[in-house]
């Protein structure tokens, strides 16, 4: 076990990627994640690995694509507008079935927006973002320790399924400091070149081809069916969710990332007033923990979804419930982060005077 170190989120994620065996980092300046490339620029040469600052996010994601084709562990980070620029690359990477991990330190949007914390990229992250029928695995940590732990998990999932894994954190988790412990350091000397990697034909009978192109519709359909099969498997096996104080809950809050963190305090405040409320916190927002939510439908009176956006994840909560229970919403936009008390106040509006 390692010791606890006080670190900034944007730097902790970089160190976690290094400990997880990221051999190359590609990025481009954008606030609030500049500390991530800056950290890599110092550390990667120390460990004999690659840091490369691209000329744009478009270039950075395609460098990721190129490097990932060789079967190397690669990592990129950016923030909302930069992630938007990367979307074409996301789509190509999806249909080319190459693994990589990308972090999105979300800021207020749309457009240039601001550099304050937001969760407005949920739709973009979970529903595609780029063109075509594809998904990335999307992980939303709510503490720095969880962020650090999930980076290694993200690489493992990426390689297991040959898929891109996106870590969505917001500016708050990127800029705050917390003690973190790095539990494991991957021995990169043990890395083997995967069979699918394009590293030359060698003694193989066939050439290795990585592509997202098939001009014959039947061929492209086959590629799509392969992707869909992979996605169904991921939905079955890789959902991560936390249920917090749900055992005796009469109401459920649904939230991810920073809002889940705040909601935990809201729940303590509510319970001190005798209101039995719990939290369902998707850790993977894709695949989404629909079953967990559905399973609580009969137990709770209503669901209360809270996000740093106009209401995005709430659509998935409603789909999971299929009308079985009401779902209320409270959100803030523009980089405003509500306090636990504000969330409680909004939550109580739906109690109909029962707990006044």
């Amino acid at each position, binding site marked *: 076990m390692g010791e606890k170190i006080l670190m900034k989120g944007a730097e902790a994620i970089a160190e976690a990627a290094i400990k997880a065996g990221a051999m190359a980092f590609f990025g481009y300046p954008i606030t609030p994640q500049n500390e991530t490339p800056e950290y890599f*620029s110092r550390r990667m040469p120390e460990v004999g690995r690659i840091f490369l600052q691209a000329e744009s996010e478009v270039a950075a994601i395609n460098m990721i694509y190129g490097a990932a084709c060789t079967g190397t562990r690669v990592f990129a980070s950016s923030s909302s507008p930069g992630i938007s620029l990367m979307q074409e690359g996301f789509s190509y990477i999806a249909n080319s079935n190459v693994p990589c991990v990308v972090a999105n330190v979300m800021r207020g949007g749309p457009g240039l927006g601001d550099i304050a914390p937001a969760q407005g990229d949920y739709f973009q992250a979970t529903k595609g973002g780029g063109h075509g029928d594809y998904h990335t695995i999307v992980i939303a940590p709510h503490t720095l320790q969880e962020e650090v732990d999930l980076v290694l998990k993200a690489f493992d999932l990426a390689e297991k399924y040959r898929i891109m894994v996106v870590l969505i954190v917001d500016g708050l988790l990127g800029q705050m400091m917390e003690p973190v412990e790095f539990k494991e350091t991957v021995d990169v000397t043990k890395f083997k070149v995967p069979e699918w990697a394009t590293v030359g034909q060698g003694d193989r009978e066939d050439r290795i081809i990585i592509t997202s192109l098939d001009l014959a519709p039947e061929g492209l359909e086959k590629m799509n069916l392969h992707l869909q099969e992979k996605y169904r498997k991921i939905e079955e096996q890789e959902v991560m969710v936390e249920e917090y104080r749900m055992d005796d809950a009469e109401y459920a809050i649904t939230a991810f990332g920073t809002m889940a963190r705040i909601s935990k305090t809201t729940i303590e405040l509510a319970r001190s007033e005798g209101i039995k409320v719990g939290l369902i916190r998707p850790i993977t927002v894709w695949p989404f923990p629909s079953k967990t939510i559905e399973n609580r439908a009969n137990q709770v009176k209503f669901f209360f979804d809270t996000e740093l956006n106009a209401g995005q994840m709430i659509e998935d909560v409603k789909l999971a419930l299929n009308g079985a229970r009401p779902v209320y919403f409270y959100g803030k936009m523009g980089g405003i982060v509500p306090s636990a008390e504000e969330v409680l106040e909004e939550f109580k509006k739906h109690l109909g005077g029962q707990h006044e």
Partner: protein
Amino acid sequence: MATYQDIVSKPTPLAPGHRMCAGCGIPAIVNSIIAASDKPVIVANATGCLEVTSTIYPFSAWNVPWVHLTFENAAAVAAGIETAYKALKKRGKIKDDVNIIAFGGDGGTYDIGIQALSGALERGHRFLYVVYDNEGYMNTGNQRSGATPFGADTTTVPAGTKSIGKTQWRKNIVEISAAHRIPYAAQAAAHNVVDIYNKAKKALSADGPSFLAVLQPCTTNWKYDTALTMKYSKLAVETNFWPLYEIENGKVHINYKPKERKPIEEFLKGQGRYRHLFKPENRYAIEEFQSLVDEEWERLLKLEESGAKL
């Protein structure tokens, strides 16, 4: 010819109260360029220091029509404005002539915006593109750019025991622009307001795209005293690190030739980003810097002498 007094006495398109760093030369650059226009001006401004500090919500420091756009598309938006303007003029819906000016930093020009810039220059839109060149991504905290000079310490190419900072020479953005066969491309520096003004005048009278690169020493990330911006701008020119020159219809003309070129050390010393170069083990880098500067200057002189079209 306009004097310094004439230029600074004109109304300023950039109002006082903007939030640029103390000692920043950007306002002087922007004001003297727009002052050179005898027609109404429309400004397209890429994300960067100028945009962030001049439009902090709910305020704006701009006294001229101004549009903010993505980091990489100042030239594209300017091209769109010019196209719409031409169409409206043709249909008689607009009578006045205007000048369209795009402003971008070096990150938004040399790197992420070069595609849009190249496209707009090649298509021949009538607009002026200005890069205020502070030699790095200064708004986001001093990351290296294609404009960052050799040997500079940045947060993404940090200098240390094993590194002198950036090892590449900067791109020659003026020649890249001129290579599009545009009528006017020039290089100016923050301290010489009259030169900036004259170049902007020529650029705005050109029948087609024009390009202006203006050196903008950055007190925050070059790390020097806020009173010294103009001194460093001047030293950049007197050491031949940043020659004042123009390329008019392909022909090079150098506007200022120092009687005695100062050694590059005079420009480097006192700047925090070059402090490490003065360590005995890094002196070789200063020598290399000097020979790069001399080589480029000699090349420029030859281009001018030959009179050949670029």
